[in-house]
């Protein structure tokens, strides 16, 4: 029996901070392992690191380089902890809830692109920028047409129609603005 997969609409996986932590661990652990293995085998520090080790051995614990190192390590550590705690916005939005168990989802990027393309098909629209937020869809429409009211009305109805098709589970309120280009 295999495990049931998790929900589709999950919080971000924090891949970038995890990769940063993994690379830091490999670099620090690998360097220390190499130093200590060479010391254990030959009884002396390896040639390329002799200067560094002897300089570090002469350092007091309250020396400025040690403090700077501790500050860098502490900042990195706090940054990683914050990236683990801050929940982040899921990349997928749940849509079309029905009686069937499970979820239907669509990526926020796809929703934004679909709405942007549908607005770009409206007469008088030169371009559009769409961003999908937690409870709102922000649409900025660029038009060279003087009668911006009509463009705004048509663009808004196009966005509303697009959202109506997808039926997001947590409703998205469209906010459409028109900027006139010259």
């Amino acid at each position: 029996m295999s495990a049931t997969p998790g929900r589709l609409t999950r919080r971000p996986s924090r891949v970038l901070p995890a990769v940063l932590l993994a690379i830091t661990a490999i670099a620090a652990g690998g360097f220390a392992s190499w130093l200590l293995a060479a010391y254990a085998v030959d009884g002396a520090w390896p040639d390329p690191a002799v200067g560094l080790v002897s300089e570090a051995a002469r350092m007091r614990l309250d020396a400025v380089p040690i403090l700077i190192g501790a500050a860098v390590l502490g900042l990195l550590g706090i940054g990683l902890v914050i990236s683990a705690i801050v929940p982040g916005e899921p990349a997928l939005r749940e849509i079309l809830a029905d009686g069937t168990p499970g979820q239907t989802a669509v990526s926020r990027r796809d929703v934004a692109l679909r709405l942007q393309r549908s607005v770009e098909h409206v007469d008088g629209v030169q371009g559009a920028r769409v961003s999908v937020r937690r409870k709102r869809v922000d649409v900025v429409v660029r038009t060279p047409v003087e009668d911006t009211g009509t463009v705004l009305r048509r663009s808004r109805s196009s966005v509303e129609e697009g959202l109506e098709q997808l039926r997001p589970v947590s409703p998205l309120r469209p906010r459409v603005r028109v900027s006139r280009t010259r």
Partner: protein
Amino acid sequence: MRTISGRRNRAALLLGGGLMTIAALWVASASTPLLDMWPEGAPFLPHGDSVLGETVAANGGLLLPAASAVSVTVAVAGILLLVAQFPTAPKRSALRITDGDDRLLGSVDPGVLERALTDAMKDVSGVTDASVRLGGGAGAPWLRATVTVAQDAEAGWVGELVRRRLTDDVSTVLGTAPVRVDLLIRLRSVRAPHTAQLRASDARNTEAATA
């Protein structure tokens, strides 16, 4: 659909980041008057006037094997964490079909069923591409599907139809309704044309009207 475990990453980040912060605070406390304020902490806290080389020499016998073990563990943990960043597909197993008395009638490779379901989904109007993953055994199957929906198709209608068909098809084949059907819809969007375009059907209508 392949995913990366967010829970594992968060746990690793909390552990790694927390240890880094504690180590940094411990080292930095040597430059603070903490030891004067709390003399009982002398055995655990670093002394600002101590020199690294002397400290290491004083505890040489114990420090070297401990440091070696810690550094190897850290490097291996880093490699494992890096490997875990490759997305993996949910695990699946062969589907065992049994009769009423739990006697094995036969096994089905889930890949075969997945291919059949994928082909069936591609036949749905408006779907341009599809992939299906089936797991959980024959008793409690789950499905995870991804379909790409064309620009001119109504995504909501296509999504509902695909889920219904997946549920029906699996129920027919395995005799059990899936416990979970997850569907990821990819919306294909095409840029608005800058020049006039004529569809084949419009062209035929125009020709018929002019004839």
